[in-house]
């Protein structure tokens, strides 16, 4: 880079190479001075509106001349338009209102205590701009593609050119091209079509509604797939660990973040197996509980007509029904149904001797655990597996629970997301010199997180270093 060239053709060439594969950055040929002077207007789509371009290009006000390409690039990526003119060795920054702000929408399902409140919208263009707003680097590429014979849905692959493995892009493009479909109405449809292990209950794409999460993933060397009409973008490759991370894990202090992560991991195990452990302990391994507790549990069960398995299943299914009804009903009513349904059904069931009080506690605690998992799709897998676990626990006690754990673990060990072992960094973390473990169950202090995870290209893994 350097000084702006007075030759427009040279400037056009610079724009072309510098912003190659950046489909969100547009350029428009303009003519000034009654068509005698040619110019090139470059701008980030969405960040600069058409109306504003019309107003400013005709030379109203707030135009700032810049002398170097570097300044021009920074102004462009900050959400302004820049104008090159034939014979002029300056580029003109045309101020704009910039990127969309918090007014766009809030992330409903990934709330954080600290950090941006912005969420993705239903427009692909706007969503890409929200990412661009956070990563003002021309190496962040945006490749748009239309999918769906009838829906013609716009999708965009967003990635950092120098960080990703090139075959990652080829793989996803091949998978996206492998099917001809009528319409893609949400990113979920695309996700199911492009997953390798499509029978698995575990998602192999991470989904997020948060632009900062997507930007963070791009900086890790991952690719973000944005789909029009969907406020959820897909992130790949993904691993088990990434489903337990939230944005504020990196914004909070490491002790707090580590504690929260440990809680989530523990919650995931219990979300799958706590009811099964209850059934196993009460029907097989009473020795595990102290005598007083087991006696009071036996007393509480007196008069309950169902076996432990039956009452646990009954309560679990009731809970799922309340949850399902709560989602379908409009906001305030849904919340009310959740609380009222939970309290009233639980209390009435205990009073009517349909279930014992301890089962209500077990089911409620399990529900809490499943809500502690940050990713809804991921949490659903545990919720589903819970039922298999319950049956095994009832049939073979803790041995059955252990067999269930082993089954899930073997399955997860076999899974991979675009070639990355799903259980990274708990397995095969030697691939990145055990660096990924620093940001797993335990989150090391920020200063020690100097390398990108295994997703990034081997020679581009340094992300933090102290200045000399």
């Amino acid at each position, binding site marked *: 880079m350097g000084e702006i060239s007075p030759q427009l053709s040279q400037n056009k060439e610079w724009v072309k190479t510098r912003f190659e594969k950046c489909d969100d950055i547009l350029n428009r040929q303009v003519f000034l001075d009654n068509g005698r002077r040619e110019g090139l207007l470059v701008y980030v789509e969405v960040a600069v509106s058409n109306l504003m371009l019309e107003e400013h290009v005709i030379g109203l006000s707030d135009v700032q001349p810049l002398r170097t390409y570097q300044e021009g690039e920074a102004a462009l990526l900050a959400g302004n338009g820049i104008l090159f003119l034939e014979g002029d060795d300056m580029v003109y920054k045309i101020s704009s209102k910039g990127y969309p702000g918090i007014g766009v929408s809030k992330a409903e399902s990934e709330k954080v205590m600290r950090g941006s409140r912005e969420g993705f919208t239903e427009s692909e263009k706007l969503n890409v701009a929200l990412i661009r707003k956070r990563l003002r680097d021309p190496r962040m590429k945006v490749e748009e593609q239309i999918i769906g014979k009838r829906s013609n849905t716009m999708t965009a692959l967003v990635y950092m050119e120098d960080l990703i493995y090139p075959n990652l892009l080829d793989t996803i493009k091949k998978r996206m091209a492998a099917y001809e479909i009528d319409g893609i109405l949400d990113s979920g449809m695309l996700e199911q079509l492009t997953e390798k292990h499509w029978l698995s209950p575990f998602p192999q794409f991470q989904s997020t509604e948060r632009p900062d999460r997507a930007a963070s993933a791009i900086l890790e060397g991952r690719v973000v797939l944005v789909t029009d009409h969907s406020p959820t973008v897909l992130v790949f490759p993904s691993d088990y660990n990434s489903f337990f991370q939230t944005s504020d894990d990196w914004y909070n202090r490491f002790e707090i973040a580590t504690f929260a992560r440990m809680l989530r991991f523990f919650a995931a195990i219990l979300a799958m197996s706590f009811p099964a452990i209850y059934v196993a302990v009460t029907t097989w391994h*009473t020795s595990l509980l102290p005598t007083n507790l087991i006696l009071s549990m036996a007393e509480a069960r007196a008069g309950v007509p169902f076996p432990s398995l039956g009452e646990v299943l009954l309560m679990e299914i009731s809970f799922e029904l309340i949850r399902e009804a709560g989602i379908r009903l409009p906001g305030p009513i849904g919340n009310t149904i959740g609380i009222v349904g939970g309290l009233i059904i639980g209390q009435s069931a205990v009073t009517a001797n349909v279930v014992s009080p301890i089962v209500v506690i077990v089911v409620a605690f399990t529900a809490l655990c499943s809500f502690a998992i940050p990713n809804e799709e991921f949490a659903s897998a545990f919720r589903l597996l819970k039922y298999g676990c319950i049956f095994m626990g009832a049939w073979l006690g*803790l041995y059955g629970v252990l067999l269930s754990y*082993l089954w899930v673990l073997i399955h997860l060990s076999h899974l991979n997301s675009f070639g990355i072992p799903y259980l990274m960094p708990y*397995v095969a973390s030697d691939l990145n010199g055990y660096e990924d473990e620093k940001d797993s169950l335990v989150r090391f202090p920020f200063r020690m997180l100097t390398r990108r995870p295994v997703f990034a290209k081997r020679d581009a893994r340094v992300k933090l270093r102290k200045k000399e």
Partner: protein
Amino acid sequence: MFSGNQKISSRQLYRNYTAGFISLSALLPPLIINGSNIVSILLAVIFLGIFLAGSAVIPRPVSTAVKALCYVHYWILGTMLVRMTGLLVQEFLLTDTKLWIIAGWFYVICYYNLYKGLECRLRVSEVLFPFFTVLLIFLSILMYGEVQIHRLEELEYIWNMGQVQKGYELFCWLGAIQSLWHLNGQLQDEHKWRTGVWKIWLSGAVITILWSLFTYCIYGNAGHTGLMFPLANAMTLAHFPGNVIGRMDTLFVFAWMIGLFLLCSSLFAPLVDGEPDKQRKYLLFALLSASYAAVLLPECMEWGQKLLYYVSTPAQLLLLFFYAVTGNGKKKVAVCVLPFVFLFLTGCSAQELEQRSLVTAVGVDAGEESPFLLTFQFGTSAKEEPKEPFVTEAKSLREAEELYWKNSWKHMDFNHLKNIYFSQEILDTEDMENLLEEIQIDGAYSRGTLVHITEEEAAREAEKEEQPKDGTPIHRLLNEWYNNGRSWK
């Protein structure tokens, strides 16, 4: 991008084999340790060290026929270990459940693990290892109170052929780690191979010796005689502080199972390396089915041990020697086609809480028609009316339990037995020894149960609502009995 390379990391190697080694150490050395055969355990560990040193430097066999020969060895070992695992689960986790159900499920999961290939199998062990070790260490710490270090002074270091023979036999069992040889050359960091093997041996050897000394410090000289799994029995003594959790042996067996699962998976992996193609998957299925059929035969242990001691282990040693001297040789060994056994798993014997009567105290007096008059006191919660004790004459606790079952719809549950009372008059009888033997062998009775001798009727003490919380654990009584030549008074 990364998977499918069939290369493993040194950490995966270490975790997989160390977990197996530790499981075996918890299973076998405590069975043979007594005051005079610590040398045999040391010898076994040294023999294994020599074998592993050989396998660390000698290239692995590449001929399918030779690998198949080795595999027969692992198959025999694996089959016997599954039977032992099944018995362990049956004894401590799923009493009254049929062995074929327990073993059947074990094989199903084992097959699933192996079906997915080497890389997947080693990832499983990589994840499970920390849980496994943390649980074992935690539970061992909880038993600290019953470990009597001074017993170590009683150990005798005797060197003779008998010790060598016992050492060799234990080495044959520890040979489950020998399949390491077949992973030579499969490590991502080749230069770490020898260090890796050395670390596995060192960790395993230290833990084997520590487990042996640990159980000796609990049971003393031959204190565990008659126990099926001494360490698991010892774990019945472990209680979580603050009375939050009851007996911990269930958790111990749970942890132990993880190690045994990993070990058996390594042993059954067909020809150890390579992607599981279709042919291998069929072979694997046939081998596991045959192993399953063998596990259900009690004689398999006897036959297996003979084969292990006199045929397959010597063959392993010869092979290693042969490869050390001549490099890759070829031996044609036919792989047997083994019968196909289909798993159809049904049936269980879980009991709901309300179907159990929690026995909290037992009184043992002299009977008139049978040797003992047994009184069983049952626990009730604070809100319940006290239950009538069950009084019967029987020649054993088991018989009394069956009588109770006939007269009531409930089963006796001895998991919460806190106190046993013996009246003075029965102590000198021969039947008393049988009763102690029964308490010793049956995993249902916690070794932490308190024992009391009463001058009057034991039944009266057992029937009291308020039960003492101090006393001598029956574990010490049993140890005294065995250690002093069954004269314990």
